[in-house]
């Protein structure tokens, strides 16, 4: 049996694809979970766009420092080998293609890798984009971490995004609670999906054409 993944399990699955020595930015919110599952024995340097490389774990209670926070404005620590720099230098890293991977959340992803994650069509609240557009164009690989469908069951993977774009043709790989999907030049290719469902089930929950990868396998994650 292999059922729908929890958020932690999606995070675990993404972490498996981050190689030793990678420079990685983990987006605010759900993607931050990935840091908890980086495989032992790999040294991975985490970038935070507010001017940190080598971000470490959350500090112990009472050790928080208001001047040492991450992009989500939460207290963090810095590993030996870490460095501080300005926003301008930080986004030179981002936009300049120096990050191996960034992991972002999504409202919608199109079959060509367009990403929408900053604004909806119904903006009663003032929109904010933060660093998402810079990350979407700048990282060598953009991984998306998302539930496969919205809370009301609407597909988030579409032929075309209907929400305002964060970046066009940005996404390289999509990790959902149901599947791992590559965005390729010839469309969306499913590398892994959960054992609880058939390929046709998955396609039915996706509003863009999928094809199974030639080496597709079952998406299997540990209990977490």
């Amino acid at each position: 049996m292999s059922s729908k993944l929890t958020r932690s399990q999606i995070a675990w699955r993404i972490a498996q694809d981050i190689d030793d020595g990678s420079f990685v930015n983990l987006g605010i919110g759900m993607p931050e979970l990935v840091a908890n599952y980086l495989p032992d024995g790999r040294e991975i340097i985490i970038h935070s766009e507010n001017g940190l490389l080598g971000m470490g774990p959350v500090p112990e209670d009472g050790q928080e420092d208001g001047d040492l926070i991450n992009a989500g404005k939460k207290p963090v620590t810095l590993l030996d080998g870490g460095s501080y720099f300005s926003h301008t230098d930080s986004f030179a890293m981002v936009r300049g293609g120096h990050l191996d991977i960034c992991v972002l959340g999504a409202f919608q992803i199109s079959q060509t890798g367009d990403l929408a994650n900053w604004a909806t069509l119904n903006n009663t609240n003032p929109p904010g984009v933060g660093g998402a557009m810079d990350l979407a164009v700048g990282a060598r690989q953009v991984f998306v971490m998302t539930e496969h469908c919205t809370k009301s069951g609407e597909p988030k993977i579409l032929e075309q995004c209907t929400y305002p774009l964060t970046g066009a043709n940005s996404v390289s790989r999509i990790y959902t609670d149901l599947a791992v999907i590559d965005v390729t030049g010839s469309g969306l290719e499913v590398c892994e999906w959960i054992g609880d469902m058939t390929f046709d089930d998955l396609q039915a929950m996706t509003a863009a054409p999928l094809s199974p990868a030639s080496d597709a396998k079952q998406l299997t994650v540990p209990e977490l």
Partner: protein
Amino acid sequence: MIDKRFASIEKALAGIQDGSVILVGGFGNAGSPIPLLEALIDQGATDLTIVSNNAGEGDFGLAALMKAGRISKIICSYPRSSGSVIFEELYGQGKIDLEVVPQGTLSERMRAAGAGIGGFYTPTSAGTLLAKGKETREIEGKLHVLELPLKGDVALIKADLADRWGNLTYNKSARNFGPTMAMAADLTIAQVRQIVDLGEISPELVVTPSIFVDRVVKEGGQT
């Protein structure tokens, strides 16, 4: 003799005009020059355009200045945070204008102003709503957007150490926008934790060189 030290925050803020564009350092509260922002209420300048990553939180610092009705426009990357109540209220009432700029572009536009660059092409925001009305251009097969410098009349920043020439260091991730804003304004005012003697900051450790800073004032006031 060069002496950029000011004896009080009030004196350090003298001369800021109505209608100024003010670059405000900080990412969330880290690096936010809260005492400078609050003293600006008494200073009296109004109709201000604020350039800052966020739009304030709670009812202190930037939010207090906003609540006092002094800010007519804010240019930022991410106005909303868990505590951005005052901004949201004023925005909902149509009492404050908002220009959303991607975080990297915000910083790079200020750098351009400080570095004498007339404009630059960035791939960030190409093909999105935020590029609407902006000139675009394909470079090396990739769509780019033309962005123009964003200059401040004043920069209000928080730093760690300063000396009387105006050299600055920062503390940890409170560095964020400070070094760039210091370059990009006609009048740069830095609130610092400590003022040290000339030569006490190693020349290798200076993050913002003296040339970019006009006034330094110790948090709390006395030098």
